[in-house]
């Protein structure tokens, strides 16, 4: 009866399986002939309809095919090829079948074309051509993927395997991989891998039986994204080549990567195309050893690395990275600022060059060495800083703005270790703190795993110096903390006032601040800052800087001034002329961006001066500061008759809060010194001619007051008197 299948029995148990490379071509031919010969009489016709063939095992190096059944339907010119068990390398699959659109068997070879492929009962999204030449011939497989991709593979009898991957996309690859390697397929999907891969894989056995594999190709439009988005790439174009060679029990490998398009985000860094990588190493099945890697990257002369990764525990056992000739203006903003100070990355400026060597062990940084050459650093003012007059920002942070703090050029070495002490030895060529230029200084510090200790650093400031003594700083997650002492060696007031753009003053400024403490958000300067000025002295104490360098940076303290010569003071500020001496106390002073925002200040004349005179212009200025509320209690005509007037005492109080100065005068309690008409005496006359200056406006807008004072001082214009 036609169509009856004819079976060639599988080799009996215990039989030597038919080894492909020793499989006698003649035997196959004979088997096929035998099948044909048997078929004809049974079919009872000249041509058979269906032919079935069964082979127990075909074995090649790295490949085992068992329970191979071939069924040929002569009428349909089709047939089926089924493999009970397929083993490639260490992996195996069962129940693989190809339903051939066309199946041809002749002379020990069969070719199955346009086949649908099922694995374990599931249809794969590919169309396959398989051509097997029994004996010494090759096995060829062509897989056509759903979206136009194609895999062309050939396994030679000598074990050489080559595959060409044409336009392989990630979804197609995942669909094909699904039944073969579900874990890899699902990882591809989870990462939303994208891109088109063209590659050639070549695998062969070397002379001594050692295997060699090479994969080279190109990825276009590649990308992936981890679910949290902290690791992702887009539009990646890269050429790559990997080589693996068996050397004894281990493998040696090399890799080359040339990344020429797209970008990646490796939290918190945006990395753009350009890097080229060469790497080589060994692999013993567990540990991946990186013997040498060279990375070419913009802004670096050379980057090398070596290390060991344990693939079973997924730990980085060791890694040594050396970066040579880092160009800080290019490397700093892109790699350093986002890692070190993400909140202020835009405000940092970098200059110069650096070399770096880092050693990691068990995934943790163990040593770090940095050599700086002509390096410079600058911190721009924050955006949106406070300004007393309420008109916009204190600084925009744009280039060209005066920086809050800058250092450079800096040369020297920093050596840090997580397990012991390190050192920093830096020569700083100079710097700038706001308007103050800082001179050259040496910075020698002992480094600890989470801190540093400075024995003494002397930073020249104008003709004096700022000396940091026994400063110990520690780093924790909350920020920097530490303590030490600061001494300001005398700075002459003429040079200081000139540098700050203030009217010139005589005298010197010095400070002894033995109790300096830094904590997150606060710098406490316990001690005294003293200034000898205007024939008397002034001292500031209880100084605290809050949120230094932040948008809300402010300074608080107390000021006490004694025996200030009004003649010098008024001359310095072109305020007219007043003779005599005063004491002043400023309590609860608070400055934001160096502008007063709160204080309680009192000025009072002191006993003992023989001549107390106040000039006409000073009277006018004092009156004007009161904003029309203050009045010289003399006739205007009288005022103009005399150049100056005698006075007995002088007193003024201003309590600033919320932008309003609450004024008071002599005997300056808020209510004392009050007159029946609601005014308060600022100057009480005495001698001839004498006059009183009376204020009537107890609440004065501070910014208005400052603006008036600036007009009086700067423009040297006599204000009008109502």
């Amino acid at each position, binding site marked *: 009866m036609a169509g009856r299948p004819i079976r060639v029995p599988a080799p009996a148990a215990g039989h030597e399986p038919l080894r492909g490379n020793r499989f006698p071509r003649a035997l196959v031919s004979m088997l096929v002939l035998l099948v044909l010969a048997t078929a004809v009489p049974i079919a009872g016709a000249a041509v058979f309809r269906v032919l079935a063939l069964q082979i127990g095992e075909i074995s090649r190096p790295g490949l085992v095919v068992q329970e191979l059944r071939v069924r040929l339907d002569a009428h349909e010119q089709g047939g089926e090829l089924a493999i009970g068990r397929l083993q490639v390398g260490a992996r195996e699959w069962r129940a693989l079948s190809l339903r051939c659109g066309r199946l041809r068997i002749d002379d020990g070879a069969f070719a199955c074309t346009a086949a649908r492929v099922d694995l374990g009962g599931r249809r794969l999204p590919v169309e396959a051509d398989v051509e097997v030449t029994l004996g010494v011939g090759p096995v060829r497989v062509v897989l056509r993927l759903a979206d136009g991709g194609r895999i062309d593979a050939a396994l030679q009898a000598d074990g050489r395997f080559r595959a060409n991957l044409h336009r392989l996309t990630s979804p197609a690859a995942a669909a094909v991989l699904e039944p073969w390697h579900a874990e890899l397929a699902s990882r591809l999907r989870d990462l939303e891998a994208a891109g088109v891969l063209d590659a050639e894989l070549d695998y062969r056995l070397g002379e001594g039986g050692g295997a060699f594999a090479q994969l080279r190709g190109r990825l276009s439009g590649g990308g992936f994204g981890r679910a949290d988005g902290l690791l992702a790439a887009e539009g990646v174009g890269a050429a790559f080549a990997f080589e693996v060679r068996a050397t004894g029990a281990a493998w040696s490998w090399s890799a080359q990567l040339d990344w020429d398009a797209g*970008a990646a985000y490796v939290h918190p860094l945006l990395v753009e195309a350009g890097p080229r990588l060469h790497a080589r190493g060994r692999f013993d099945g567990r540990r991946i050893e990186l013997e040498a890697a060279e990375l070419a990257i913009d802004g670096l002369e050379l980057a090398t690395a070596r290390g060991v990764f344990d693939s079973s525990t997924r730990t980085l056992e060791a890694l040594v990275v050396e970066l040579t000739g880092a160009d800080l203006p290019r490397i700093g903003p892109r790699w350093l600022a986002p890692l070190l100070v993400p909140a202020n990355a835009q405000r940092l400026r970098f200059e110069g060059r650096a070399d770096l060597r880092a050693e990691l062990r068990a995934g943790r940084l163990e040593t770090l060495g940095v050599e700086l050459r002509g390096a410079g650093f600058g911190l721009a003012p924050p955006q*949106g800083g*406070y300004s007393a007059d309420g008109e916009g920002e204190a600084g925009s942070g744009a280039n060209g703005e005066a920086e809050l703090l800058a250092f450079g050029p800096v040369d020297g070495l920093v050596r840090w270790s997580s397990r012991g002490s390190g050192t920093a030895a830096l020569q700083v060529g100079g710097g700038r703190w706001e308007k103050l230029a800082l001179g050259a200084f040496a910075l020698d510090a002992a480094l600890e795993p989470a801190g540093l200790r400075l024995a003494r650093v002397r930073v020249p400031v104008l003709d004096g110096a700022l000396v940091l003594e026994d400063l110990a700083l520690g780093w924790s997650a909350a920020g920097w903390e530490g303590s030490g002492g600061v001494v300001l060696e005398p700075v002459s007031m003429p040079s200081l006032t000139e540098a700050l753009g203030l009217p010139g003053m005589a005298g010197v400024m010095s400070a002894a601040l033995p109790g300096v403490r830094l904590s997150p958000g606060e710098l406490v300067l316990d001690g005294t800052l003293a200034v000898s000025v205007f024939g008397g002295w002034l001292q500031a104490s209880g100084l605290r800087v809050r949120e230094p360098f932040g948008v809300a940076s402010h300074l608080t303290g107390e000021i006490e001034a004694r025996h200030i010569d009004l003649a010098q003071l008024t001359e310095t500020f072109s305020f007219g002329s007043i003779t005599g001496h005063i004491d002043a106390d400023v309590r609860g002073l608070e400055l*934001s961006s160096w502008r007063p925002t709160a204080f309680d200040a009192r000025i009072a004349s002191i006993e003992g001066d023989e001549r107390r005179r106040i000039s006409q212009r000073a009277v006018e200025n004092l009156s004007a500061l009161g904003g029309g509320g203050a009045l010289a209690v003399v006739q205007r005509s009288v005022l103009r008759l005399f150049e100056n007037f005698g006075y007995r005492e002088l007193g003024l109080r201003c309590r600033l809060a919320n932008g309003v100065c609450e004024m008071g005068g002599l005997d300056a309690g808020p209510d004392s010194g009050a007159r029946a008409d609601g005014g308060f005496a600022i100057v009480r006359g005495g001698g001839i001619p004498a006059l009183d200056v009376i204020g009537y406006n107890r609440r004065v807008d501070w910014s208005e007051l400052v603006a008036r004072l600036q007009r009086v001082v700067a423009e040297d214009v006599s204000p009008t008197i109502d």
Partner: protein
Amino acid sequence: MKFGSMQPRSLSGCVAALFVGLVLALSAHAQGNLEIDTPAISALRKTMQQRHAQLAPLYASGAVGIAADGTVSLRDAAAVPLAQRAQANAAVAAENADRAALYREIARANGHPEWEAEVRRTFAQRWLERAQPGWWVQQGTSWSRK
């Protein structure tokens, strides 16, 4: 809306000001002493209001969420275009630095620096309550869409 622009459209600008204003105002009501205003606090408030224009679209897309500890968190960076992810991270870091400073300042302005943690907790609750529908908020350790 285009992310990263410092020039908010008028509507988003208003929403930003309203949101930050409301949270600050309501926090003040929650505990009278939180109303305290100093130049430092108003400077912080101002930069936070300006930054809100940049953060609002990130809240809306779910990229950034209102965390339970009074900070904001880059909880789904994938919702931000790749090229702007670093910028978004910088905005989050800057916002958190300002928030930490704000909590410290309010505690200090009250004369009780040790209240910082309490101020932070109160604010955390208010930020959460004032979050717009659709924004992601964290309660305990889990995130949910409001």
